[in-house]
């Protein structure tokens, strides 16, 4: 079974793809803020999804990607894909 994607993994990816303010930005409550509130646009999500695919082999279809509205939802969706991939 492949390794689950951690919050730390996601934070590193977002730092590269979107730019994050500081180390703590994605901790705690912020994980549940909407991408819109965080200022992440659709390109930022696509870039993040592309990295998840390249580095973790996780494929998230576009319509599902754009339906995940928080970092936590994206993490959950990605980890479901990891689990399904076995």
């Amino acid at each position, binding site marked *: 079974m492949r390794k689950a994607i951690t919050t730390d993994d996601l934070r590193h990816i977002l730092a590269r793809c979107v730019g994050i303010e500081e180390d703590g930005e994605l901790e705690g409550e912020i994980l549940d803020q909407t991408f819109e509130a965080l200022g992440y*646009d*659709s*390109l930022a999500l*696509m*870039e993040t999804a*592309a990295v998840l695919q390249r580095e973790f082999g996780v494929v998230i279809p*576009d319509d599902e990607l754009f339906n995940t509205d928080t970092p936590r939802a994206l993490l959950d969706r990605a980890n479901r894909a990891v689990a399904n991939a076995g």
Partner: protein
Amino acid sequence: MSSRIVITGIGVRAPGASGTKEFWDLLSSGRTATRRISFFDPSPYRSQVAGECDFDPESEGLSAREIRRMDRATQFAVACADDAIVDSGLEVNRLDPHRVGVSLGSAVAASTSLDVEYQILSDAGRRWTVSPEYLSPHMFDYLTPGVMPAELAWRIGAEGPVTMVSNGCTSGLDAVGNAVQVIRDGAADIMLAGATDTPITPIVVACFDAIKATTTYNNDPEHASRPFDASRNGFVLAEGSAMFVLETLEHATNRGAHIYAEVSGYATRSNAYHMTGLKKDGREMAEAIGAALAEARKNPEDLDYINAHGSGTKQNDWHETAALKRSLGLHAYETPVSSIKSMVGHSLGAIGSVEIAASLLAIENNVVPPTANLHEADPECDLDYVPVTARERRVDTVLSVGSGFGGFQSAIVLNRPGGTR
């Protein structure tokens, strides 16, 4: 400021068309010229379809030296410029060079040569520091594309204002709009204006793959560009060029030139929203359309044809349809609207000029070109998009619009001189 500017010469290279006549034959018959990419193996790419030109620089009359020196996009522009000059009947060696200028549009300029040179210099990307010993003597020309309008200026002996307008995918409209302003400012009497782009190269295909802007109808290349159709899923990348001779109405009349149309209105606005995204309301494109009509002193009901941006992405089709309704009101429903990108694809910065060529020929022939591959319109796209078959009708006044990355929204109004109601 009130001088009237007309177009008296056309040159065009587009997929399926090595000249103006072939171009119009293609459009008026509703045939498509998109195909599976043949310039390189497209199999590693998400989108494998493009509007390629069968362009042969030698048979275009370019010398071996010129072919070595010029990027493909420059070669296209030169071929079109030669045609436009001949078509205009101007004898360039009898013109005052000081009063002749060039306004060339291009979005990605020498992308073809940059991609090729990079692979050579970097040993196919293996090194960050490139090897200067493999450097092409023309690399500087590819680094900064000022050489492209310069080549055109040398060709026609222009010594007036010469520049490149690089407004992304509205460059082809904005370069012509810029030329009109240069003449109105009194800085030139004659402008060679138009645009060129030859972006069917791995880096450009890959960057549109990344944002999923291009189609994935890889198994049906001829029917891959489907603007306004419910089944569309992205644009088809293409290459092409169109160049025009612009001069004052007085100058053209005095020399007895054939006049295709007057450029009576032009405007551009920015959406200041997103580098690639569009808001659904079409506000800024509507503003550009309104300003262009106002400059042309035309009302929405004067329009006989609207040449759409119609790229075949969902966001564009919704945005553009909303912009037309917002600016034209009920007349948006009554005026035929079509996208020639359904037939020749989207040649980025060049397409605005290619679409001006189509608009001029619509006026010339009193025929509205169709939107090919449109069988079932998206329910939110409820205008008259002239599906599949060209339509004969009196065409005196045309609006052509464009929308591009960076947020640019441009509109140009062309009309038959003296032929308006």
